């Protein structure tokens, strides 16, 4: 544990040296990005993707209510095992009722990143917090310590971060098997392993690369990649999107309208 800590410390010293080198005029675009006191890129801010990955990670033509998209999967096709591909097709055919997002489940990783809602990164002295407007989802990226012993079913996983130069690398395991990657039925098992790489290319753009691994479902690891943009509006702030999962579950006695708050108010 303490050795690991020394390792991290050495890594950050390296990062600072690397940054110093870049600042000294070695001419990378990353020289003009904001940085924290310890020299790492300061990811703080409000960010959002601009693509159609939430509908379908793979290339797709337009359907009613779904814009067309060139896809974000390297090589275009997700390498499913044969049985898993059948499952994906079944998921896709029944997506209106089966997609866990329609049941208000947390979207999981990486789907939460490319939901069509902004998210805020709070880059603290201790961890990197991702606060999402969509269903107030949260990820705390712990920069110290190792993955917890499993099995744990967490919708948003157990995320451990490290810096490789100017790239925040987030390694996540311990996922709940119920989430999907998109509305098109792309899915995973509890063996999902996600490695995300957030690289600040300019002050207002992140390069987001993700490697997805799950030997129960895919024949090999595969990658997605997309830019994430800073929301530049003046006074931009997160608002809320709550999901009302259970309000349709309860039904009043037939023929009896429940009293409303207005009936209690004085005229």
């Amino acid at each position, binding site marked *: 544990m303490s050795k690991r800590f020394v390792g991290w410390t050495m890594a950050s010293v390296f990062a600072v040296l690397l940054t110093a080198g870049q600042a000294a005029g070695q001419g990378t675009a990353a020289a003009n990005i904001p940085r924290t006191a310890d020299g790492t890129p300061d990811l703080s801010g409000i960010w959002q993707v601009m693509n159609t990955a939430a509908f379908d990670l793979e290339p797709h033509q337009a359907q009613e209510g779904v814009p067309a998209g060139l896809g974000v999967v390297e090589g275009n096709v997700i390498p499913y095992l044969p049985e898993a591909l059948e499952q994906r097709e079944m998921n896709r055919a029944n997506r209106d009722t089966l997609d866990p997002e329609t049941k208000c489940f947390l979207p999981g990783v990486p789907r939460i990143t490319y939901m069509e809602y902004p998210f805020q990164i709070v880059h603290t002295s201790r961890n990197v917090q991702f606060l999402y407007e969509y269903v107030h989802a949260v990820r705390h990226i712990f920069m110290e310590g190792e993955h917890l012993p499993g099995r744990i079913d967490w919708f948003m996983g157990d995320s451990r971060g490290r810096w490789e130069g100017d790239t925040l690398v987030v390694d996540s395991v311990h996922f709940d098997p119920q989430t999907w990657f998109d509305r098109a039925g792309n899915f995973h098992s509890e063996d999902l392993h996600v490695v995300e790489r957030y690289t600040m290319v300019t002050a207002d753009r992140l390069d987001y690369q993700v490697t997805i691994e799950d030997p129960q479902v895919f024949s090999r690891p595969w990658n997605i990649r997309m830019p994430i943009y800073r929301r530049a509006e003046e006074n931009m702030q997160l608002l809320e999107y709550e999901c009302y999962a259970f309000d349709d579950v309860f039904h*009043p006695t037939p023929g009896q309208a429940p009293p409303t708050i207005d009936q209690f108010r004085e005229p």
Partner: protein
Amino acid sequence: MKRRLMASIRAIAATAAVLSLVTTVTIGGQGRNFQPPAGGPDWTPPLNAYGDPDIEGRWTERSDITTYSIQAGLDDRDEHTQIGGQRPQLGEPIMTPDKKIPYLPWAATFADFLHEQHYGAWTGAYLDPVSRGLLEGLPRLHYQGAMEIYQFPDYISVSYAYGHAYRIIYTDGRPHPPSNVKLWMGDSRGHWEGDTFVSEVTNLNGQAWFDIVGSFSTDALTMVERWKFSGPERIDYEVTMTDPNAYREPWTMGMVLAKTEYEEMWPSEVWEGTVIADTDSLSIRPPQ
């Protein structure tokens, strides 16, 4: 018969409460109700790099408040003391003479109605929003679990251990969103007054409750929070509620927050997918 049973349960609960207090006192030290001392006349808060009092860290409420009911007395908490052998929590955070919310008459009647709904609801909308997987809101999150605070030049971030709630309290003087933009957590703006961080919360949707049994407001509610950094490990927190549509006058809740050691804040999903809503156990009120 039933009344007698309730009376004896009440007596047992009261005894248990006293015993629990005695136990706490006997054990002493860093128990769950241990309140760190104020700093004394010579103490001044440590400052951060921006020159503001440095309150970064993990904080936990230490005034024995239960989310079951914030109002005084065991009446509201009878059922609480019977569920799963919970230790009665007797904190009385409301700083009015009778320790109760000064509802307007109609609102008092509606609060009683919500309390009754707890035993069998007409509709899900009359059950605790937290039991429906919705945001717990303020200030209830402060007596539900720990919070992690970080400070930046333009804002303070607060992450809550319960239900993965969070808030950003901007300190850069920006305006609130337009008043028709209503939010479960409201919209917070803050500034420092000496050793006290003052945050004003507006744009509240009035849907979040202050406790399980339905202490409520309308969407006319505004809050002013005062976080007095009064000792190295102590914040005296007060929040004043103003809602002319529901309350006769503004009222204030007070509690002590204690600084505790950092620990990783793990995911705290409330209902999302982990539990199938058990509608059978929620009786639907028969027509009356």
